């Protein structure tokens, strides 16, 4: 099967190069057979990479330890789910997975794009094929997943224990899907530039792709936080680690694009900016891959470091230079159709929103790279950790949260004083009431107070929007409240789905603010001994160590420390935290013992128990007990955000835009559609 896999990789490379070469040469114009061969090569690349992936999967499932990748990431006693997910557990396999998914997306772009954008498709195929060819080339020449060993070990090394978590079966693919799908909007942007089709057509063609990409990134990032929380065991979910930052960067710029694209659609402005954002987002996705794989910056998330990172650096440089040069050559054709009329307008609010989103992205990138810069300039190594990022980014993040409320309420073109008064009185009051309540309750953490008060304001704006929409439908159509609410969302999914996304964002901020009140302590307990911990919500936890039991599981020896939990004198049951010593099928230890935390999650707070180890090989256990307030809301916020995103992109419900809709006279839209976006 390895031979077949190798062969399939070469076929994929040749097809990719052919497709890219023909597409960029422009010879396909007027020659239908060449045009067909371009898209045919895209489908062929996908088929070849599917064969390669199946070949590697077969090696994994059949424990063919002569394949270096199989021996490095699996063992005979690895649970079957992780054998399947081992395809993306290591460098070489994840490159194959990346190329496979990219070729799938490239094929879908060819198949699903409406025919009115047919002129763009050969160039789109060219870009996606070039990127796919790069990945395949990297595999063949630097990270071949089908490389064989000189001997066949009796068993493999097994999967890193930190990757043996259900979240890791979903989190990396989601993040990859997010990263990879960015290539499609990028390809359409380049196609628009090359073909000089610089109207809003390419934007409509990529709308679903940008949302898909943003959704996958959102899911991937949230799952990544969840994985870090339950698996890494440090009691938090975001550490401003370089790899975490790398995933956040394209998400931020993509979010900026999703906002600014509305201005181009409605006002014909920001054409250059939007193209720049898409190019930048693509480059940041490659940058993230470079960071993850190069080891140039230390990270707890890097499991796949090698010299391959420098291939990505070179690719990043070349594609950046080419794309921005192309943008520069089309610069004069990308003039705005109208100019900004007023700073008190939705366009201006979106502009500032973009400024802040890109500003945060720059700030995160700057902080991530600052250690390298410092070493270059001063010759001094420094650490740039959470205190730095929090100090720089929290104020910007709070401004962004405020704009989340301001943007949707302010009028297009120019807001009047009456408009501002009418729109903002109730939300500002909601924010002030929240602020007063927090101060009265004794809260003094400035940033937490600001986050919660602004969340109150934003919640006020969203509730007001839904309430007005429902009331209008009830007046105009005589509908009941639930029906009016459902139809309000159903008829204008983009707008109200967007509001749901904003709800998710504000829940995120509420959850983030909870971590300001985290409580943690260490204790050494013999069986029967207890310790008490006070939560920020005033609950008293009594934690009694019950003992440590040891037993063997499928591929590990488990030492399980059990704690009896009482909250305010009432029993809450038992919690267990484990030490796991993973072994291969010959019972030989494979990795250092890992820790599995015990988590009891609630709406107010999580009780988070970590078994650190035992004293003198006895049942006397050392624990770290942590109370993390409001963490449950982070996962719920992620769900709401993703749900809102799905509503936004769900087919139907809104107008299928084929020409720019202008917000110059809202009543015209109302006359035609009855509902307004």
């Amino acid at each position, binding site marked *: 099967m390895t031979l077949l896999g190798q062969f399939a990789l070469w076929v994929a490379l040749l097809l990719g190069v052919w497709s890219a070469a023909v597409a960029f040469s422009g010879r396909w114009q007027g020659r239908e057979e060449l045009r067909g061969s371009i898209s045919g090569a895209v489908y062929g690349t996908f088929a070849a990479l599917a064969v390669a992936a199946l070949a590697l999967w077969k090696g994994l499932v059949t424990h063919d330890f002569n394949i270096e990748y199989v021996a490095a990431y699996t063992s005979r006693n690895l649970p079957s789910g992780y054998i399947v997910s081992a395809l993306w557990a290591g460098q070489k396999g994840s490159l194959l997975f990346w190329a496979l998914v990219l070729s799938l997306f490239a094929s879908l772009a060819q198949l699903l794009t409406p025919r009115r954008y047919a002129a763009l498709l050969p160039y789109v195929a060219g870009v996606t094929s070039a990127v796919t060819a790069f990945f395949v080339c990297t595999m063949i020449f630097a990270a071949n997943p089908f490389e064989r060993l000189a001997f066949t070990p009796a068993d493999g090394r097994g999967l890193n224990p930190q990757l043996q978590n259900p979240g890791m079966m979903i989190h990396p693919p989601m993040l990859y899907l997010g990263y990879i799908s960015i290539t499609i909007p990028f390809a359409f942007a380049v196609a628009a530039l090359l073909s000089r089709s610089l109207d809003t057509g390419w934007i409509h063609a990529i709308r679903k792709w940008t949302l898909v990409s943003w959704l996958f990134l959102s899911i991937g990032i949230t799952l990544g936080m969840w994985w870090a929380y339950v698996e890494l065991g440090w009691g938090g979910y975001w550490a401003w680690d370089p790899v975490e930052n790398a995933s956040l960067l394209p998400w931020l710029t993509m979010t900026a694009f999703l906002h600014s694209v509305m201005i181009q659609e409605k006002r014909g402005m920001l054409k250059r900016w939007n193209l720049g954002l898409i190019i930048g987002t693509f480059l940041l996705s490659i940058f993230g891959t470079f960071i993850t794989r190069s080891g140039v910056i230390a990270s707890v998330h890097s499991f796949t470091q090698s010299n391959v990172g420098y291939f990505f650096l070179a690719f990043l440089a070349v594609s950046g230079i080419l794309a921005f040069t192309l943008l520069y050559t089309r610069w004069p054709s990308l003039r705005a159709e109208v100019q900004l009329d007023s700073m008190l307008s939705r366009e201006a609010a979106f502009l500032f929103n973009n400024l802040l989103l890109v500003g945060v992205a720059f*700030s995160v990138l700057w902080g991530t790279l600052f250690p390298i810069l410092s070493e270059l300039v001063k010759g001094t190594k420094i650490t740039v950790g959470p205190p730095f990022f929090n100090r720089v980014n929290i104020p910007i993040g709070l401004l962004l949260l405020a704009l989340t409320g301001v943007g949707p309420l302010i009028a297009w073109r120019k807001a009047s004083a009456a408009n501002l008064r009418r729109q903002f009185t109730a939300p500002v009051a909601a924010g002030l009431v929240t602020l007063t309540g927090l101060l009265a309750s004794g809260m003094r953490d400035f940033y937490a107070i600001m986050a919660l008060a602004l969340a109150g304001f934003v919640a006020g704006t969203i509730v007001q929007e839904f309430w007005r929409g429902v009331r209008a439908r009830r007046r105009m159509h005589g509908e009941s409240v639930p029906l009016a609410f459902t139809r309000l969302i159903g008829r204008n999914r983009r707008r109200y789905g967007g509001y749901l996304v904003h709800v998710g964002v504000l829940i995120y901020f509420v959850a983030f603010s909870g971590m300001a009140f985290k409580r943690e302590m260490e204790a050494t307990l013999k069986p*029967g001994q207890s310790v*008490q911990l006070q939560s920020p919500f005033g609950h008293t936890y009594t934690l009694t*160590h019950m003992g*440590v039991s040891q037993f063997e599981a499928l591929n590990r020896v488990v030492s399980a420390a059990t704690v009896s939990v009482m909250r305010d004198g009432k029993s809450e049951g038992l919690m267990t935290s484990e030490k796991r010593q993973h072994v291969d099928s010959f019972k030989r230890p494979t990795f250092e*013992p890992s820790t599995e935390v015990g988590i009891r999650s609630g709406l107010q707070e999580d009780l988070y128990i970590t078994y*650190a180890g035992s*004293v003198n090989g006895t049942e006397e256990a050392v624990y770290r007990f942590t109370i993390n307030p409001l963490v449950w809301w982070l996962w719920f916020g992620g769900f709401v955000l993703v749900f809102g995103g799905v509503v936004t992109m769900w087919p139907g419900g809104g107008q299928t835009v084929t020409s720019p809709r202008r917000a110059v006279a809202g009543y015209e839209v109302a006359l035609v559609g009855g509902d*307004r976006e």
Partner: protein
Amino acid sequence: MNGCGRREFLGRLAALAAVPTGLQVQDSLAGRGDVGTLRDPYSAGQPREVTRIEDYDERIKAIEHRLACNCGCTLDVFTCRTTDFTCTYSPKLHREVVAMDKAGKSAQEILDAFVAEYGEKALMAPKPEGFNLWGYLLPGSLILAAGAGLFAFVSRRRVVVAAAGTEAPGAQPSGTSSTATPEELERLRQALAEVED
């Protein structure tokens, strides 16, 4: 309590000392807690020492949250020593912090001592001075500058447009339509007032 060892005594002392900060140890099941021996101590990770008061003293913790562990984990000393239980660096650094604290050094003096010994990378965030100020101030400054530039650009443009007495190219007169009658406009304004502005 009879016959308790030094470590156990220190552990209990540490726990008792936590009472004023809201943490307290109780011995409600005293006498019932036989300490069994683990069948396979190796698989339970590195042997641990009994927790002492200084291990979770808030002051020590605050200092350690500002110091980076040098094992390559990217975590601070406190988080690393209470998370990555295989790290041998963070416990050592913790002992250094405790020793300096016991010697009467202030938090800043301890941080300075770490910088002197391990270099600036010992801090979780660089000091906001010299070249490091670029790190702290550049993002915010750029955002402010871009915001101010945008504001100035739009304001100047509005003055120019007003002086010329013309609308911007491509802009249509707001609030009017060549196709709608005044009655239609009024009706629509009333309807849309409910859902937009």
